[in-house]
């Protein structure tokens, strides 16, 4: 059939509600009798906890509960290790409340529940904790030094994991190569900073034996399963809902943050609803962060600029714990080859504990680092051989006829790193046209005569997306003719209520606004994983498609029986099911839904109409024939991809650097994006815009600064600078659509992409702008002061 809504820039069905201030984020829910919680957090990066006195806090009027680790009984268990890996030999996860040692500033030490948040915070001030400070590991350099203090006393050398992968024969390739270079690269920590901080509301219903939680999370169903286990409840007696979520960007795909256990624990204990809302300072010091890595890279290439081998040895900062296993560095290692034919690759990484906030994926999840390294390599080859940077990339691209391309590594999902499809040269050609690449050197030369320093940078990436294990969808047509769809993923702004509706509408012949989606509610759909890894549109979207196809087939079958026609002659359009070439022989979807449910008692307008039509009567045999697969116009389907797919893209920017201040401004920004088939280009472009802005923040403005005591010294929006409308340029976006052969509709995933190549292209553009100085950027982020320092330190500084 021809699709109508798939691919169209349909306006979002979410918007009217959100625009009127009628969204429902966790803190918007106030329940009767509700109490409020606050968390006492460690002021030390590492200390022994020798005593906690909570008596004064307990005595404060309005305080209902004060919890320390010793009050938690059997709930005092380390959180589960989410993604075990054979190389992760020393995993450590966090307790809901620290018992005898704290390992980062912000670690939860006590939990207070009171009449109001104000009183709860008053009570925090009355808790007296005796700390015995211990030596602190505040950086990868300290963590890896000889005789370093130990973050976990029993873990030698602070090493959580060590992992080596080899593709081809790197040693032989290095030995015979005509050019070999060595460089060091570093990427410092940043943070997701969704505008809505985290939050948990829990209600215990003693009559029903039911625990209900509203959590600002990207994965409510795994949390439901975990809470059921922790509190010894049947899974169906725990309901976890992610209502409207004000941004996630990875930091909300986690279990468990301590408050996700402590809040329901308190609600059960007190038999009253309890709400905990994270404030921004807490978000800075207790929501997971990412990015810190140090890379030592050797690369070999021939006289033509063809990359022959890469050896990348890197250190990865996991913070005080490994809640998410070693997913991030594994993704870094697997993402490094990018769109290039890299046949000899030695990858080795060591994951080190530090006394800092734990690390789990943040939008990009290990990829911006990898792309930074590989694109620096491409620029390094160009510089060494005096070749054009785009030309070097072209000489190394995997060609369209070489797919599927096996990179030779095991990906984060345990499957092969096999690229399903891609059109890398086509993307670069588009970008060059958008930037007027061939004429830029003239503009640059012209500007330099005026004392202005313009630079052009490009960054190419391949992004593993759409990983399994699976997602599902339930689609049901109700008697009012509306279509109710449910799935286990969540939305934090990705507009699934619109895009999934587009997918379903195409199959059922309705408008997207007739499809009402419920997601992120464990009671609405029992199975699922969550929204992360640029996977929801592909994995849950494919399940939606499969379920919609099944409902469609069922509708055709039932209508064919009622109209005594062949199912092949039944069509669905405009909310009706009818016989081809005889449109008067038609039922609305609502009427068909009623007849799909052979009840003796039907009610309502649709039921009366259906009755009056006197269609084919009941057949002999059961009212609900087995082959119909149950009553109603309803179907549930699951989609499990064979392995992840691989989206790609290339971004480019023209910047201007002021060498006297180190300030950089963007004159032009262009992005070419290939996420396979596009469901809604407006939404994909919005994702790219937002990703780029986050990337620019991560490349230039945002850097979490920990001092030697492990204190995050810029833990506020006054000091940690998110880019504003005044700093982010207009972004031109174009698409290349290389369908994925893996999924039924050919999507690949778009959520993270925008952020990934930004550090790489930013470095490339700075090098280009300041080429006369001979500068070579090897670190990210690079704020103006640091760029100024680098410039001063560059020996050949002619500027």
């Amino acid at each position, binding site marked *: 059939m021809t699709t109508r809504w798939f691919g169209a820039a349909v306006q*979002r069905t979410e918007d009217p509600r959100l625009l*009127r*201030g009628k969204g*429902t984020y966790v803190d918007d829910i106030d329940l009767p009798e509700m109490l409020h919680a606050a968390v006492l957090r460690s002021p030390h990066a590492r200390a022994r906890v020798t005593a906690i006195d909570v008596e004064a806090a307990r005595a404060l*009027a309005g305080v209902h509960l004060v919890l320390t680790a010793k009050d938690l009984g059997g709930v005092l268990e380390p959180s589960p290790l989410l993604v075990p890996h054979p190389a992760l030999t020393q995993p450590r996860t966090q307790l809901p409340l620290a018992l005898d040692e704290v390992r980062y500033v912000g670690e939860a030490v006590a939990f207070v529940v009171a009449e109001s948040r104000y009183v709860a915070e008053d009570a925090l001030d009355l808790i007296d904790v005796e700390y015995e400070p211990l030596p602190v590991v505040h950086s990868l350099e300290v963590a890896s030094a000889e005789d370093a203090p130990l973050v976990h006393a029993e873990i030698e050398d602070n090493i959580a994991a060590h992992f080596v992968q080899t593709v081809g024969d790197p040693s032989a390739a290095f030995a015979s190569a005509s050019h070999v270079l060595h460089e060091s690269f570093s990427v410092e920590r940043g943070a997701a900073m969704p*505008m809505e901080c985290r939050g948990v509301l829990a209600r215990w219903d003693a009559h029903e034996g039911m625990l209900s939680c509203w959590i600002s999370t990207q994965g409510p169903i795994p949390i439901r399963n975990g809470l059921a286990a922790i509190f010894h409840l049947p899974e169906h007696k725990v309901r976890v809902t992610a209502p409207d979520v004000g*941004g996630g960007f990875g930091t909300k795909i986690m279990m468990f943050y301590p408050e996700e256990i402590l809040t329901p624990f308190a609600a059960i204990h007190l038999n009253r609803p309890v709400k905990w809302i994270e404030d921004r300072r807490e978000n800075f010091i207790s929501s997971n962060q990412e990015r810190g890595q140090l890379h030592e890279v050797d690369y070999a290439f021939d006289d033509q600029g063809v990359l022959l081998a890469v050896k990348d040895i890197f250190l990865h900062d996991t913070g005080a714990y490994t809640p998410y296993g070693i997913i991030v560095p594994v993704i870094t290692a697997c993402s490094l080859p990018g769109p290039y034919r890299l046949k000899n690759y030695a990858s080795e990484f060591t994951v080190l504990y530090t006394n800092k906030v734990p690390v789990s994926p943040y939008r990009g999840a290990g990829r911006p680092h990898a792309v930074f390294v590989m694109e620096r390599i491409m620029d390094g080859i160009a510089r060494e051989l005096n070749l054009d940077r785009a030309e070097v990339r072209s000489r190394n691209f995997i060609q369209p006829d070489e797919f599927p391309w096996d990179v030779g590594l095991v990906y984060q999902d345990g499957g092969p790193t096999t690229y399903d499809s891609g059109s890398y040269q086509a993307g670069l050609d588009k970008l060059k046209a958008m930037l007027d690449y061939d004429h830029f050197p003239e503009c640059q030369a012209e500007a330099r005569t005026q004392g202005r320093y313009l630079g052009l940078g490009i960054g190419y990436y391949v992004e593993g997306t759409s990983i399994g294990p699976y997602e599902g969808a339930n689609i049901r047509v109700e008697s009012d003719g509306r279509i109710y769809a449910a799935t286990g993923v969540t939305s934090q702004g990705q507009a699934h209520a619109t895009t999934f509706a587009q997918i379903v509408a195409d199959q059922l012949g309705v408008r997207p606004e007739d499809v009402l989606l419920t997601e992120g509610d464990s009671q609405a759909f029992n199975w699922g994983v969550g929204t992360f890894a640029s996977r929801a549109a592909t994995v849950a979207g494919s399940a939606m498609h499969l379920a919609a196809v099944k409902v469609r087939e069922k509708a055709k079958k039932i209508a064919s029986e009622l109209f005594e026609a062949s199912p092949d002659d039944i069509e669905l359009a405009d909310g009706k099911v009818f016989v081809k070439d005889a449109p008067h022989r038609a039922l609305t979807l609502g009427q068909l839904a009623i007849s799909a449910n052979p009840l003796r008692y039907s009610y309502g307008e649709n039921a009366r109409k259906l009755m009056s039509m006197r269609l084919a009567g009941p057949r002999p045999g059961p009212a609900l024939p087995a082959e119909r697969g149950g009553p109603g116009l309803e179907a549930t389907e699951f989609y499990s991809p064979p392995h992840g797919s691989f989206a790609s893209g290339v971004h480019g920017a023209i910047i201007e650097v002021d060498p006297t201040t180190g300030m950089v401004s963007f004159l032009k920004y262009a992005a070419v994006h290939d996420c396979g088939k596009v469901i809604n280009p407006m939404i994909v472009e919005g994702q790219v815009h937002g990703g780029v*802005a986050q990337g620019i923040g991560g490349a230039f403005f945002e850097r979490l600064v920990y001092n030697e005591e492990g204190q995050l010294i810029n833990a506020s929006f006054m000091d940690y600078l998110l880019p504003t409308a005044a700093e982010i340029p207009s972004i031109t976006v174009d698409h290349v659509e290389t369908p994925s052969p893996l999924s039924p509709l050919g999507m690949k995933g778009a959520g993270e992409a925008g952020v990934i190549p930004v550090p790489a292209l930013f470095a490339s553009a700075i090098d280009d702008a300041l080429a006369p100085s001979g500068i070579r950027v090897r670190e990210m982020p690079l704020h103006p002061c640091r760029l100024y320092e680098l410039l001063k330190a560059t020996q050949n500084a002619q500027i």
Partner: protein
Amino acid sequence: MQEQEENPPTFTEQSLIEVTVNGQHYERSIPVRLLLSDFIRHELHLTGTHVGCEHGVCGCCTILLNGEAVRSCLMLAVQADGMAITTIEGMAGTQSELHPIQQAFREKHGLQCGFCTPGIIMTVHAMLHENPDPTEEEIRHELSGNLCRCTGYQNIVEAVKLAAERLREPQMGVEQ
């Protein structure tokens, strides 16, 4: 003094305030230390005003106070005594049509997660009242007090341009 150290103040002092919010009059006895943002959200249950940082940087809590855009997290509710407040809920009111600014945000895809959106719309409302025909640079400057982590601002800027254009048409003037 010593006694104070042992028994710190519990901040239980209450005060009576009168405010007009979205045209409706309210009289409430509230703790003196209650933030205006918390008063609006949890006393009046107008939860469209969001709180993103509690230190006056993100702009999610922006409201109109006597017509001017202010951050409701930086004020105590008692400081608003006698004043008129407009929140996002007052923009389109109960009308089925969205306010032209809201409509423009929808058409230009100027929101994703929607958390910063009410504050931005209030800022834009005040901006366009002050300057009905802003340049892109002026729009970006005026928006720089509101953080958005999803959109990259581009479509917000486009939405403001569209809203400004429509509001300049005489029949649609900015309602006050």
